[in-house]
């Protein structure tokens, strides 16, 4: 039987750096209401923020576009779903970099994979953009 997810938050926002605080505050508030400890709250906030930064910088390349952001609860997991409407990305090109190679940049995907239990990219069913789903076990 398919697991039902409870929707806790949804917003459609312009993909602009000045929107990031609003997104972070929403994630923090939901995670806090679910009694996540502070380290866990910071981890999910970081993962969402980095995902949105990647959309702003890479998917839209600094241009205009929207982000649809949803927070859902699936049993004991928090599900974060982030959609953009940019050209489909080649997921094979998404590789976190080697940390022993000290250089600025390229850490966002590493952070997302490090703090979340699951990170999955897909193309929207109608091809209208990209969907990122990240799961984290609660508690």
């Amino acid at each position, binding site marked *: 039987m398919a697991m039902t997810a409870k929707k806790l938050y949804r917003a459609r926002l312009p993909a602009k*750096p000045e929107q*990031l605080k609003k997104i*972070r505050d929403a994630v923090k508030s939901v995670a806090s209401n679910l009694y996540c400890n502070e380290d866990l709250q910071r*981890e999910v906030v970081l993962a969402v*923020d980095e995902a949105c*930064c990647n959309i702003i910088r890479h998917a839209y390349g600094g241009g205009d576009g929207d982000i649809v952001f949803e927070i859902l609860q699936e049993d004991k997991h928090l599900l974060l779903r982030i959609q953009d409407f940019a050209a489909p990305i080649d997921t094979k090109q998404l590789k976190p970099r080697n940390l022993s190679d000290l250089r600025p940049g*390229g850490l966002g995907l590493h*952070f997302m994979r*490090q703090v979340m239990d699951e990170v999955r990219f897909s193309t929207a069913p109608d091809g209208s953009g990209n969907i990122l789903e990240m799961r984290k076990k609660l508690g």
Partner: protein
Amino acid sequence: MSYPTRIEDRFTILELTGEIDLQCSPKVRKQVLECIQAYHNLLVDLAAVDYIDSSGVATLVEGYQMAKKRKLEFGLLSVSRAAMQVLELARLDQVFPIFESFEAVK
């Protein structure tokens, strides 16, 4: 708005506050690089940083590398728990010189 700086002994201390994200990290980058281009030894105080993302961390890496090239000292001071959590994820806690307080630098 610029972040406050002060001079202590041979160092310039840059005090970052609040949330260092994609919106404000260009401003941080400008201040960090200006200090190093002026040949100042730099300590970045992260005591009052509630959040730092990969763009903020990238700025610190760039500053560290530029300082090293110029044979200047670069370190992090009083790193908050929130900032340390992110540095640890990037394993940069093993790269940057990190000091609990300015007393520990001297």
